[in-house]
């Protein structure tokens, strides 16, 4: 099992609109505002521009590379190769996709080539399908009324509001981290990209070469398990009525 590349401390780096669930179908964005400017500076040989890009995408690239190759060392090499590919290709970048999409396309192409050479046991898409097809309820069926009741499928042990102060505590983030670490691989990768990195559904299904439907099923499984872990931590009595 691949190790999870998450580390403490949790500096709340990106507390912005990303934290809200994204409503509406994800669409690949065109060239983002600012892309043209940074590309221009890069072409002019501005080192600060390159550093800005490393800060913006470096960690995310490492994580994505880890999804395709067998260890961290290989992932780091893929990331380095990608940056060289970005520099050597920057004159050909036309802004038809966003810079981010373009960079990650280079990355996933290299990572896949590398991953095949490392002969990873199972292609990601096969893993994803297997995980998506397994039948897993989001909530323990025992928490709903059975078929003999007047209202089958209604809550028998309903969820209760969580105390806001405990939800925001640092320890609570640790609970989420542990829960994500326990997830099956494909679910873990999808929740990391969607909810930690804030990618759109389409960006995730493109990068991982899975269907939009599987992407959503995997995300839903992952979120449901993380929610259950939070509930067990924040409101243990409700879990064992």
């Amino acid at each position, binding site marked *: 099992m691949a190790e999870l590349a998450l580390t403490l401390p949790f500096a709340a780096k990106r507390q912005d609109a990303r934290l809200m669930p994204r*409503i509406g179908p994800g669409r690949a964005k065109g060239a983002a505002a600012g892309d043209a400017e940074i590309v221009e500076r890069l072409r002019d040989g501005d080192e600060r521009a390159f550093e800005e890009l490393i800060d913006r995408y470096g*960690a995310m690239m490492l994580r994505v590379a880890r999804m395709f190759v067998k260890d961290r060392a290989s992932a780091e090499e893929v990331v380095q190769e990608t940056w060289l590919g970005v520099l050597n290709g920057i004159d050909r970048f036309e802004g038809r996709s966003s810079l981010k999409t373009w960079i990650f396309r280079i990355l996933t192409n290299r990572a896949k080539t590398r991953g095949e050479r490392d002969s990873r046991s199972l292609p990601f898409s096969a893993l994803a399908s297997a995980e998506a097809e397994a039948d897993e309820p989001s909530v323990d069926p025992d928490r*709903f009324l059975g078929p003999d009741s007047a209202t089958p499928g*209604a809550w028998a042990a*309903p*969820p209760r509001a969580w105390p806001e102060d405990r939800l925001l505590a640092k320890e609570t983030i640790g609970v989420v981290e542990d829960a994500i670490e326990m997830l099956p691989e494909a679910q873990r990768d999808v929740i990391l990209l969607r*909810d*930690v990195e804030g990618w759109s559904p389409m960006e995730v299904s493109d990068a991982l070469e899975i269907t939009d439907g599987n992407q959503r099923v995997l995300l839903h499984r992952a979120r449901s398990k993380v929610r259950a872990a939070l*509930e067990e931590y924040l409101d243990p009595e409700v879990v064992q009525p």
Partner: protein
Amino acid sequence: MSLFTKDIACQELVELVTAYFDGSLSRTERRRFRAHIRGCPHCTAYVEQMRQTIETTGRLTEEDIGPEARDELLEAFRGWRDGRAT
């Protein structure tokens, strides 16, 4: 108690939350979803917990690339830039 509407049971609703957030439910499904949570405080609480779960997950940060890798990259950048200048 309005724990059950004729269209959708609580146990079904909990399977649709991500599709609801992503806007990928059909219009009929979305209407049923909304009608259900309007009448069901328990599912309202559940949907709120899923929202809070997403927000809390969003507070995780990822591993950074190491300082050595960064230095190597900047070195490579300078080589690339100098190669272009000539």
